[in-house]
């Protein structure tokens, strides 16, 4: 299954928009996490936790799922395939891992946003921020970005076998 050049360009634009948007949204979430951790203002801490829950559920989660979906379309609709090249395989594994961690972490963020809504000054400051998950998430997303831009050479064992089969089938 190969896409027409026009559709490929359209699909690539959509995929890039979702993927880069995901990175930007995580960077914004990280800024909120830092604000929640460092601010002495109770209003700021409370607002940061509420914004983190909203950004997480309504921006980061949809963008991550859309990025995975469009990435699958891109790899299956182009010569790269999903399991034939290491860079596509590693991208798939890292993206899936990031989404699983995100979906497991978001209920905690919602819970803490609820706590922040009711908590007083001392309790609010005790909540701290959320740095580890977004910082590691951002690192994983940047690794994926680098892999997708540079597309380092390297066939998987499956891709190598498939290429050999095609070479033998094609008339020389």
């Amino acid at each position, binding site marked *: 299954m190969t896409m027409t050049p026009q559709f490929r360009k359209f699909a690539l634009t959509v995929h890039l928009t979702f993927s880069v948007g995901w990175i930007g949204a995580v960077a914004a979430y990280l800024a909120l996490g830092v604000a929640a951790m460092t601010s002495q203002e109770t209003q700021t801490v409370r607002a940061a936790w509420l914004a983190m829950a909203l950004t997480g559920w309504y921006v980061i989660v949809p963008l991550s799922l859309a990025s995975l979906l469009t990435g699958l379309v891109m790899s299956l609709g182009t010569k790269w395939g999903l399991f034939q090249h290491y860079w596509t395989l590693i991208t798939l594994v890292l993206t899936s891992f990031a989404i699983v961690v995100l979906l497991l972490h978001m209920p*905690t963020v919602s819970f*803490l946003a609820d706590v922040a809504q009711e908590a007083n000054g001392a309790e609010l400051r*005790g909540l*701290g921020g959320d740095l580890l998950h977004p910082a590691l998430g951002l690192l994983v997303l940047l690794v994926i970005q680098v892999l997708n831009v540079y597309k*380092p050479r*390297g066939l998987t064992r499956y891709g190598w076998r498939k290429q050999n089969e095609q070479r033998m089938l094609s008339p020389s």
Partner: protein
Amino acid sequence: MPDPHAYRTPHWVKMFGIIVLALILLIGILMITGIGGEHGPGRHLRTPTPTLEVQQP
């Protein structure tokens, strides 16, 4: 002499695998030993002991 047609895993994939394994090991050790602290909402809810509020007459 190695067979030039034999399959070989690219060098960068091996390096990448080693780094990922090292990170997984590091995170595992931090979690098992407890150096990294508690994981989950409890980590955030370690609030300072509530102070006794004295009501002014």
